[in-house]
């Protein structure tokens, strides 16, 4: 066991994976000599050489397109997109090509590979360094999408992604990359205790980030990524007001863990879905619909979203824009006291 932040956990995972096979490469803008703008790939080029840790030209469509070709050929790529805000030049390659290769080729050309990209706000990046675009990838079948919230999951999910036979997008919560109290008032992001050896976290399984204490009105929060910690803080505040919160950390956005969602929703009958992405057609809408479809008779209150606001994130007003613990708390109390 070692104490790691998410960046260290990612870096550690990449070192382990690269050591296990020669048919694995890392590519992206500034990932080599510089070690990535968030330093997630530091030391890898030194250890594995320029041929396997590649500083690419500045072109996301080229990064993903080339990674697809490598994967088809049998060399798996872990591509880094510097910020998820810059992934859209590769959108066609991802949703029309990567997502569909196995299906459209009758199974002849599967295309397993990994895309790592930092998501979310809280680093004063303005609206071009803060986006949370998960729903526009989840919508296109063929892509696995995971979103770790802590160093342990960041490592375990990344290694599972690299093992997977599917293309996997790993959405890394950049505002908690470096451990506790990065950002403002976001609750605790403890450094994680992470095994140094190889392990995986199963894709498609949620985890319970906070269990019911048995005191007060029970409420479920379904969330993921950095928001898990914001919700944790809200849950503490709610406890003081007689509301007992279970937090389900979805971890895997597609496939999602329907059992975990349904189990918690049926247990409490009161559900809040919290995420950072814009509300309209965001991932939270899908979760609301799933709860509607599978738990209607159990619901004591409308399933309530606490998502990001729709407009692009502003700069100095960022901390008004991002869903904070107070907003989650309000929704939790609203559903707890709904009558």
């Amino acid at each position, binding site marked *: 066991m070692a104490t790691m932040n998410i960046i260290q956990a990612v870096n550690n995972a990449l070192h382990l994976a690269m050591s296990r096979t020669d048919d694995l490469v890392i590519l992206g803008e500034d990932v080599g000599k510089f070690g990535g703008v968030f330093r997630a790939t530091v030391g890898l080029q030194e250890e594995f050489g320029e041929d396997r840790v590649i500083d690419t030209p500045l072109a996301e469509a080229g990064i993903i397109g080339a990674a697809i*070709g490598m994967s088809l050929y049998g060399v798996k790529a872990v591509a880094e997109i510097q910020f998820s805000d810059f992934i859209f030049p590769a959108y066609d390659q991802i949703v*029309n090509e990567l997502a569909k290769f*196995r299906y459209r*080729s009758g199974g002849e050309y599967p295309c397993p590979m990994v895309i790592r990209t930092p998501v979310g706000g809280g680093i004063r990046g303005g609206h071009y360094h803060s986006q949370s675009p998960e729903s526009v990838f989840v919508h296109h079948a063929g892509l696995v999408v995971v979103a770790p919230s802590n160093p342990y999951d960041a490592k375990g999910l990344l290694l599972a992604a690299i093992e997977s036979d599917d293309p996997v997008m790993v959405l890394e919560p950049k505002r908690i990359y470096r451990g506790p109290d990065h950002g403002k008032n976001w609750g605790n992001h403890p450094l994680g205790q992470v095994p140094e050896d190889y392990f995986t976290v199963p894709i498609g399984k949620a985890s319970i980030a906070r269990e019911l204490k048995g005191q007060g009105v029970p409420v479920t929060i379904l969330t993921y990524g950095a928001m898990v910690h914001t919700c944790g803080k809200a849950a503490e505040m709610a406890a003081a007001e007689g509301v007992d919160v279970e937090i389900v950390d979805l971890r895997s956005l597609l496939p999602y863990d329907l059992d975990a969602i349904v189990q918690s929703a049926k247990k409490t009958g009161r559900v809040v879905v919290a995420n950072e992405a814009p509300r309209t057609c965001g991932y939270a809408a899908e979760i609301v619909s799933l709860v509607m479809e599978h738990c209607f008779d159990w619901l004591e209150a409308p399933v309530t979203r606490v998502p990001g606001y729709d407009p692009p994130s502003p700069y100095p007003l960022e901390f008004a824009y991002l869903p904070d613990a107070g907003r989650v708390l309000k929704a939790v109390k609203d559903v707890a006291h709904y009558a």
Partner: protein
Amino acid sequence: MTKAPQADTPTVSTKLMQVMTPNGKVVDKKFLASMPQEDIVRLYEAMLVQRVYDERMIKMQRQGRLGFYLACTGEEACAYGPAYALEDKDWFYPAYREPGIALWRGMPFQAWVDNMVGNCDDPVKGRQMPVHWTAREQNIVSISSPVGTQIPQATGSAYASKLRGDGAVSICFFGEGTSSEGDFHVGLNFAGVWKAPAIFFCRNNGYAISTPYEKTTATEHIALRAHGYGIRGQVVDGNDVLAVIKAVREAADWARQGKGPTLIEAKTYRLAAHSTSDDPKGYRLEKEEAMWRKRCPIKRLKIWLEKEGLWDDDKEQACIEAASDRIIAALQVAESKPHPELDTMFNEVFADVPDHLRRQHEALQAHLESGTADYQPR
């Protein structure tokens, strides 16, 4: 600042590479001599057969027996040439107008026809329109409709083969219209930086559906773009199958020597409509078509073969009839086969069928059994 050119400095040649003129006159005797005569006959036959297939399929489509077809009439040399020139281990990224690659390299003929119908034996399991086949055994990558996406992918495969040191080359096909997409640029630029063993084969057939070359780009030759990526460029007569073979061989040698990619621009012409959904009468002149019909890749080879005594009208007739019978029979077989199974709609989206797709599959199954469904299986 300019350095002296080195032996492995890529050059860009816009001189039309030719082995044989439209009149069957040989202008590159040396290259011709290097080609086994029986191979030339085989190539001729294959192109002629392709022409017959295309004509028959278009007729079938008009009769409503096919949903869609897209011919390569006039451009046969651009598929059969490269297919011949390269090795078994090499990888192909076709666009949609190179069936010849598959047929030459041994994709089962019936599988190709099954794909036109989308039946249960279609290699892509009825998941794509006709003409979007795949052929894993032959290292021919799955075709998709969005044009140009295959270009950076070919760069990636070429890089992977370089990393492994297996000596394979990846060749990628696309039209001159497609060369306007961003993917062209990123694919070639990455390949240049990586000195990837890739060949980018641009079929310049003058049109992108209705859009003529001069509305596609202001450059005189697509091959000139090689300058911008520091890679080799070569213009070749795309209606001269021997010249195409020569150009592809040179590019493959260059690539296998570790010197990087080549952009080949093959000058040709789409004698047919873009596809069965198109009619060129609205946008181009019969005169232009007639001029290009004279430059037909099959015709010029025939003149030469006949002169050499390697071909005659009887052979021609027999070849055409056999091809015609073959494709008609294959289509009948294809039509007699059932649709793909329902589960092909839900499996192979992911490696394993996830729960949410399993639930969708079950719901569809129940719906079909309810008797209220529009769809009737065949």
